[in-house]
């Protein structure tokens, strides 16, 4: 075990994957010699050469197009999109190509070996274009897996699983926690299962569901609520697609209440999908409406970032409202 921040945990996973399999290649904007603008890919080029870790020209659609081809060849591409906000030029390559490659060819060809890494999320004074949380866009794309870790330990184990999983995975890294989240992480290889939610804390009155950096926020809100005598169960979804409905439903069957929180705008966000599925699965268990505490339905603002965010106070208020329904 070693103390690592989230970036170091990711770097450690990349090192292990590249050492283990020479087909693994890491590329994207500035990931080469420089090691990435956040330094997640530090030392990879030095260690594995320019052939296996390299800068690409500045074109996200090109990066993912190239990665799709490389994956279909049987290589194992790990493509970085510098910010989640800049993944949209690659949307067609992901939605129409990556995700549909296997299906359209009857399993003859696939992009199963592909992993796309990208930092996402706000709270860093980044405004419209360095703060977005685009997971819901990809949650509507059959064929993709989406994974979001909440801390260094999850990050390393989930990233290793994502790289080795034979399906294309979008791996979203909460950049607010890159250096802020520090924890014990095994230096060796380990995996954490995809598609499984993690019960962070058990409780009996309400289930709080979040992922990535937002888990910390609901944890703080839960502490506040516990001081009022409300017992919160906290679930980290971890995988957005496919998501672990059964674990969530079991929790809600027990607590009778559900609150979902994410930073992305409410309308069309993934909380909507969860709420729809859980009201169906737990119709007779629910004691109050499923609550969503999310970003506002506006672009992500700068000067009003604090007001925009679904912070612990807003989550706390929603817990209280739900319990007092």
């Amino acid at each position, binding site marked *: 075990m070693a103390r690592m921040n989230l970036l170091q945990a990711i770097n450690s996973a990349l090192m292990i994957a590249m050492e283990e399999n020479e*087909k693994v*290649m890491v590329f994207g904007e500035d990931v080469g010699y420089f090691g990435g603008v956040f330094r997640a890919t530090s030392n990879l080029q030095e260690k594995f050469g320019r*052939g*296996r870790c*390299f800068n*690409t*020209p500045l*074109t996200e*659609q*090109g990066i*993912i*197009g*190239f*990665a*799709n*081809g*490389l*994956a*279909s*060849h*049987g*290589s194992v*591409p790990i493509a970085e999109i510098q910010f989640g906000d800049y993944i949209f*030029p690659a949307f*067609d*390559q992901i939605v*129409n*190509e990556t995700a*549909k*490659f*296997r*299906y*359209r*060819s*009857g*399993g*003859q*060809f*696939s992009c*199963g070996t592909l992993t796309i890494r990208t930092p996402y999320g706000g709270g860093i004074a980044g405004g419209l274009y360095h703060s977005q949380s685009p997971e819901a866009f990809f949650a509507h794309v*059959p*064929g993709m*897996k989406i994974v979001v870790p909440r801390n260094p330990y999850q990050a390393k184990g989930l990233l290793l699983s994502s790289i080795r999983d*034979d*399906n294309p995975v979008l791996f979203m890294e909460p950049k607010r926690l890159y250096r802020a989240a520090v924890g014990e992480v095994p230096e060796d290889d380990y995996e954490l299962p995809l*598609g499984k939610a993690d019960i962070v804390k058990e409780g009996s009155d309400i289930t709080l569901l979040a992922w990535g950096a937002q888990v910390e926020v609901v944890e703080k809100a839960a502490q506040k609520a516990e001081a009022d005598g409300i017992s919160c169960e906290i679930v980290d979804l971890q995988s957005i697609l*496919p998501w672990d*409905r*059964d674990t969530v439903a079991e929790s809600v069957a027990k607590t009778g209440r559900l609150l979902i929180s994410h930073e992305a705008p409410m309308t069309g966000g993934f909380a909507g999908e969860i709420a729809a599925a859980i009201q169906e699965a737990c119709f007779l268990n629910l004691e109050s409406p499923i609550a969503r505490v999310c970003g506002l339905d506006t672009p992500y603002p700068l000067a009003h970032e604090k007001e925009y965010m679904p912070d612990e106070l807003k989550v706390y208020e929603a817990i209280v409202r739900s319990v007092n329904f």
Partner: protein
Amino acid sequence: MQDRDHLSNVGITHTAKIIANGIIDIPMLQLLQADGTSFEEAKLPDLDQETAVKIYETMKFIRVLDERMVSAQRQGRISFYLASTGEEAASAASAAALEPQDLIMSQYREQGALAYRGYTTEQFMNQMFSNEKEANKGRQMPIHYGDKPLNFMTISSPLGTQIPQAAGYAYGQKMAGEDAITICYFGEGAASEGDFHAGLNMAAVLKCPAIFFCRNNGYAISTPSNEQFAGDGIASRGIGYGIKTIRVDGNDALAVFAATTEARKIAIEEQCPVLIEAMTYRLAAHSTSDDPTGYRSKDEEEKWRQKDPISRLRNWLISKDWLDEEKDVESLEEMRQDVLKQLKLCEQVPVCSIEHIVEDVYDTPPWHLQEQLSELKDHIRKYPEAYPATAGRINNG
């Protein structure tokens, strides 16, 4: 850290002269005249009789297939078709210059390349009837061929997406030390997509052993090439990317073969991309959904019918004594019979059983797809007459 100087190769001028279009003229390689005799100055490629005849037979076959399937579509037997009439040399002769281990990524009008590789009439038919014998499991519209054993990547409809993919695939071949390249076909229309720019630039920078083969056939559906670009075709863009480039008469099978042979040699030896622009003409309608009389004249088409790549090659073969005219007529008839026979056989083959509807989305169907399949099967069992294609074979799983 080595110092960099991005001006090291830049010359200096002191006069503000704007460079206009036309400073480069990229000529078009032509070896055969319209009547099939070769130009005097032309240096013909090293092409043996067997290969030459195979190219010719492939083109002939495609012409037969196209004619037959356009009719089949009109008869309502298939839902859609897309012919390559007039462009057969571009795809068949380029494919002939490749090795079997080279990967082919095609746009959709390169049935000639596929047939050259050995895709059988039956395989063509299975794909077009999207039946259960087809390797792609009938998931896409007719003409979206794909066959792994033949190293022919399954076609996808969104235009241009295969261009950066080809760069990536070729990069994989290079890193794996394979003696193989990737060829990527696309139209001059698709070359307007952002993916074209991304793909060619990446291939140049990352030195990917790929041939980018543009069929410039003058049209993208109804849009003529002068509403598609204002420069000197697609070839002139190669220069901007620092990619070795050649323009070739796409209706001249020998020229196409020569250019592609040379391009493959460079791609393998120098491990770098090459761009080929083949000038041709889409004599066919864009597809069976299209009617070109709405946007171009019969006259214009007629001029190009005179440049038919098949008769051009035939004449040359005959002049070389590599083709027997009588046998040629016989084999045409045989091809027609074969196509008709397979059409009739394959249209009888059922589509895949319903389980396949959720397969290949992921490596294995996750819980939600299993749930959806099981509900769907219950539903079909309840209303079998509403789902005749699958109800008959539904299992009890």
